[in-house]
């Protein structure tokens, strides 16, 4: 059924339909509407979950970690500084192989303080062992929550996941959402069956001490599970498409890429603007296409290489910067294309909520065609000293 909903409310509705048993979250802009909605649902007995109010994000994710280890389906949501405060717990959730789902409403990190959107927060946790899925619009943001639970609770995966969508641009925007019925969700997402759990009658401890004789093998095992998640995402995304008509089989999606000369690579809501700019440029006869990356962890290097094999240049848009190096996506794409004679040019763009318009995308393509890249796009030179 089509409903006009705010992005945050659509996500909260989807999370409710996934029947989480424990929710622990701390409010932070622009994530607040999600957790407010869920708190209302629990208070109104529309959702049978334990809602733990905590004093910080560190506690929120710690509560989720414990509840997941005890065998519950758990949910949290955060952004920016809140995610930064969860840093330690993020690594522990992954190492303990706990399928915790968290929505990341992407926002810039301080300093300087910014409440606006970029993707620095989740990108900065790229090495933590969590799956990272990025949504282009609110329909996708909603659907990826059903998909993510299905994937991470699979006993071949057993890892936590971020479902990332851009703060304000998506979270506070009203769009038509094709909502699923509870029966449809239940048919796709069975109840959580923990692989192992805390049980006083059969005790185990999670996150044990590993001496140098064992630590590397644990890390290898987690890495292997995360890489293996790619196939599980693909299969679950295909089944989602067969059941509900929206296919998420591919970890990356090409748009007008088949005969493209210049490929733009982007993640998240930016892809919508890029598609509009591409349509305009295509009308003018310019061979430009988009490769949208939906899954950043595990990074689908083989799919990226295959999708970009025929282009003559690649322009990567990064809403993040690995300070002292380059944009995180550009680095991954360049790695995926290693050995190919295709120039990969990176553009740091839209940090801290700066708008990106179609003319900016056209400008990026022109810069890429001139071989000018690996820069911060659109700097206001007059304010730099």
């Amino acid at each position, binding site marked *: 059924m089509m409903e006009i909903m705010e992005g945050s409310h659509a996500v909260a509705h989807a999370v409710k339909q996934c029947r989480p048993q424990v929710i622990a979250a701390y409010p932070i802009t622009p994530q607040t509407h999600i957790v407010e909605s869920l708190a209302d649902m629990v208070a109104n007995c529309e959702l049978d979950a334990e809602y733990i109010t905590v004093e910080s994000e560190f506690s929120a994710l710690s509560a989720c970690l414990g509840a997941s280890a005890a065998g519950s389906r758990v949910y949290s949501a955060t952004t920016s500084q809140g995610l930064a405060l969860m840093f330690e717990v993020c690594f522990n959730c992954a190492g303990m*192989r706990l399928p915790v789902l968290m929505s990341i409403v992407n926002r810039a990190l301080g300093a300087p303080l910014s409440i606006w959107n970029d993707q620095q927060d989740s990108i900065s946790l790229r090495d933590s062992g969590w799956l990272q899925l990025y949504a282009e619009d609110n329909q996708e943001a909603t659907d990826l929550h059903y998909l993510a639970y299905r994937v991470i609770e699979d006993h071949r995966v057993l890892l936590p996941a971020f479902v990332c969508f851009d703060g304000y641009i998506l979270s506070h925007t009203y769009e038509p959402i094709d909502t699923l019925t509870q029966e449809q969700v239940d048919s796709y997402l069975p109840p959580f069956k923990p692989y*192992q759990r805390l049980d006083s009658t059969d*005790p185990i*401890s999670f996150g*044990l*001490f590993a*001496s140098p004789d*064992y630590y590397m093998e*644990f890390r290898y095992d987690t890495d292997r599970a995360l890489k293996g998640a790619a196939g599980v995402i693909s299969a679950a995304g295909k089944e989602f498409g067969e059941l509900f008509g929206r296919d998420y089989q591919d970890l990356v999606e090409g748009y007008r890429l088949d005969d493209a000369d210049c490929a733009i690579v982007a993640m998240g809501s930016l892809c919508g603007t890029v598609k509009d700019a591409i349509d305009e440029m295509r009308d003018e006869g310019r061979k430009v296409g988009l490769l949208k990356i939906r899954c950043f962890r595990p990074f689908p290097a083989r799919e990226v290489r295959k999708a970009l094999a025929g282009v003559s240049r690649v322009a990567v848009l990064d809403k993040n910067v690995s300070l002292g190096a380059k944009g995180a996506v550009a680095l991954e794409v360049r790695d995926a294309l290693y050995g190919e004679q295709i120039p990969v040019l990176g553009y740091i763009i839209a940090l801290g909520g700066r708008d990106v318009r179609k003319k900016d995308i056209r400008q990026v393509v022109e810069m890429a065609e001139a071989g000018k890249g690996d820069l911060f796009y659109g700097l206001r030179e007059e304010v730099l000293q």
Partner: protein
Amino acid sequence: MALGTGCTARPGRSRENRTGSWRTFRPEFAHDKCTACGMCRQVCPEGCIGEDEEGLPVPDYNYCKGCGLCAEECPAEAIEMKKEEK
């Protein structure tokens, strides 16, 4: 030992971590001075001091890290820390 998914362990698994090799100083127990008060067993962070039939302390050097707490706390000064020799 095989890895447990999620770094999990059943009770007793820490016995496999033989931490005795970390030791620089080794506690030696003079049973002729010992009053069998049990203080050393109580303060041992590893819980690796047992007792014989007469209640006298018997350390398990497979796990003793040589922290010296037992020697510091022994009221009878019956425990001496001696440097390990190869």
